[in-house]
């Protein structure tokens, strides 16, 4: 679960990190009130779950109260990478020239089977850009998941990164960030920029915080932060069925299968067949008729989908169960797009008999995934041309 900047800051504050204070506002008038209360220049920052807010014009320095109001009017309601901004964070502006900007972050790193701490004196820009242009400017350090980052390690990393300022205070902030990452099951936490004030004190100006979905059961206090409006409506519906569903851009073939690997490969096969997958949908193991029915219903709701490719493999999956689910969707009038499927499993003969009984051109079974994908791709591409 991705957190907004203000939520990430709230967590870091709970762990004792010195963060740049701010208040959330939903209207330009609220922004005006906050700016007046602060009585100094402020920054109005869009709160959306995407990177590159600044470049998109979603972060604006506002030297006066009127300017803050004006900027809020611009930012609230704006679209950043497909997401509408409906709240902003108003923070006191700092004099960037009076200090320096660094970067510190922690990320789950499968290569070291733990978190890797990253630190760089090149703060204030996206770390991916630093990594691409000057990777040597990022210091990496494996964090022990049991002990967490210890102060001496933090000091060593800060020294290697070339951080100037109060070394003990900077290290202390890194240790607290590590504690927050481990105790709050972060997948990613970043403090960027990490601002070092003229007196050497570190201050977190901006943060990114993402929590492991598998661990949400022990962070129930954060569940109210989950924002469904930031997700695709079909993704919300899929979550209710317990499906792993990802909506993909510019696709025309709905793809569903049982298992992440097989669905990922199905996407590749659809691409290879000359069409574009409109979604990733893993229905999980034990493909019962009802599950298949729900999956077909879900994918059918996507207006981008012109044909559906079903790819099921399993020694214990019954092909007739899959067929039954698809037929039910057809009988209820939910299924209006061609379904091209490949089901490797038991009871394939029974499945064929059921389909022969229905005898609908909308549902066809194929002996392998390539033929099924090609048929679906052809149907989808033809549907596009006939429009």
């Amino acid at each position, binding site marked *: 679960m991705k957190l907004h900047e203000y939520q990430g800051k709230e967590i870091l504050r709970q762990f004792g990190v010195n963060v740049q204070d701010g208040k959330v506002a939903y209207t330009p008038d609220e922004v005006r009130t906050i700016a007046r209360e602060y009585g100094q220049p402020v920054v109005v920052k869009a709160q959306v779950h995407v990177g590159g807010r600044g470049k998109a014009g979603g972060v604006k320095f506002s030297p006066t109260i009127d300017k803050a109001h004006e900027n809020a009017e611009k930012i609230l309601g704006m679209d950043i990478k497909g997401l509408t901004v409906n709240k902003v964070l108003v923070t006191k502006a700092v004099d960037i020239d009076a200090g320096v900007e660094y970067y510190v972050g922690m990320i789950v790193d499968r290569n070291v089977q733990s978190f890797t701490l990253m630190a760089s004196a090149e703060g204030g820009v996206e770390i991916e850009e630093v990594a691409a242009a000057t990777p040597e400017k990022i210091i990496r350090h494996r964090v022990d998941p049991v002990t967490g980052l210890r102060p001496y390690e933090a000091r060593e990393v800060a020294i290697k990164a070339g951080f100037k300022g109060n070394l003990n205070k900077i290290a202390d902030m890194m240790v607290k960030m590590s504690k927050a990452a481990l105790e709050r099951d972060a997948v990613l936490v970043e403090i960027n920029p990490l601002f070092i004030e003229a007196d050497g004190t570190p201050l977190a100006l901006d943060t990114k915080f993402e929590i492991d979905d598998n661990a949400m*059961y022990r962070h129930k206090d954060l569940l109210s932060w989950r924002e469904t409006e930031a997700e695709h409506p079909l993704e919300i519906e899929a979550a209710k069925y317990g499906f792993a569903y990802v909506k993909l851009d510019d696709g025309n073939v709905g793809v569903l299968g049982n298992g*992440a*690997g097989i669905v990922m*490969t199905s996407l590749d096969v659809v691409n*290879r067949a000359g069409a574009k997958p409109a979604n990733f949908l893993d229905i999980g193991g034990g493909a019962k008729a009802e599950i298949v029915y729900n999956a077909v219903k879900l994918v059918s709701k996507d207006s981008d989908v012109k044909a559906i490719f079903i790819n099921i*493999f399993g020694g214990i999956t019954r092909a007739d169960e899959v067929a039954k689910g698809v037929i039910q969707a057809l009988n209820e009038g939910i299924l209006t797009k061609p379904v091209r499927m490949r089901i490797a499993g038991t009871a394939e003969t029974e499945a064929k008999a059921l389909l022969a009984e229905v005898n609908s051109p909308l549902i066809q079974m194929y002996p392998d995934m390539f033929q099924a994908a090609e048929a679906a791709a052809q149907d989808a591409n033809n549907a596009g041309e006939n429009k």
Partner: protein
Amino acid sequence: MSILVNKDTHVIVVGMTGREGANHTKAMREFGTQVVAGVTPGKGGQTHEGLPIYNSVAEAVSNHQVDASIIFVPPAGAADAVLESAHAGVPLVILITEGVPTVDMMKAVQEVKALDHASREEGGKGVRLIGGNCPGLISSGECKIGIMPNSIYAEKGRIGLISRSGTLTYEAGKLLQNAGLGTSTTVGIGGDPVIGTTFADVLPLFEADPDTDAIVVIGEIGGADEEAAAEYIKNNMKKPVVAFISGRSAPAGKRMGHAGAIIMGNVGTPESKLAAFKDANVPVADTMPEIIELVKQVLNK
């Protein structure tokens, strides 16, 4: 011969009396696996389909020879179950559970590695964790400690298979079987970001196995396990290896079901993996069936 498990491997099932545990215990025994006992805290002293149930792994180990344990425990208790088996001295621990918090796995994997090291220092067998979020492992015709369909692995073959994905493991196994090649041992290492055993950990075992002629590696986007495997192959392996990479058309930054399959910046891209395998002289199949053609080619060299 085969790697890691064979017809003499004695197995306990942790979580045997749960729905998944019970179903798969049955299937494993049908395959021929020597399941000797189950563990369900609170149900010690009962029996399940003729097998004794113990309250703890330690109790099971003190009453039976235990070579491996397979864990069907819900996510919140899964890492603890791994450590219970590891501390009880079970040398091979297979975690099937999907959805275990990553931080739990980091801690468990680190502790298992420390135990492994300590055990080997003392001349012991060590401890190996496979998974989580994996289908387990199977030596064809001998022993299954996992959840894969039995029929694909009835006949022994001479191809080793290692995979990050469950269903693709079965798919590849079926293709190898249909082509008359068959598998020696199949290891599903799991799709999570932090797992106990990687490709590079399994490759040396196949290299040393006299009954494996070639190895198929089924990778996917995300992480750098495939790159590490390519590096190992390049420097250490004489046996031919064929690779496949799933999710090559997936967009960056999106999590495709497997938490491990996510491209972050330039790390984990298909291009990086293809380049690494090319550098190691490992042919990469564009489609699953092409795996068979490539395996036949490398065997004929």
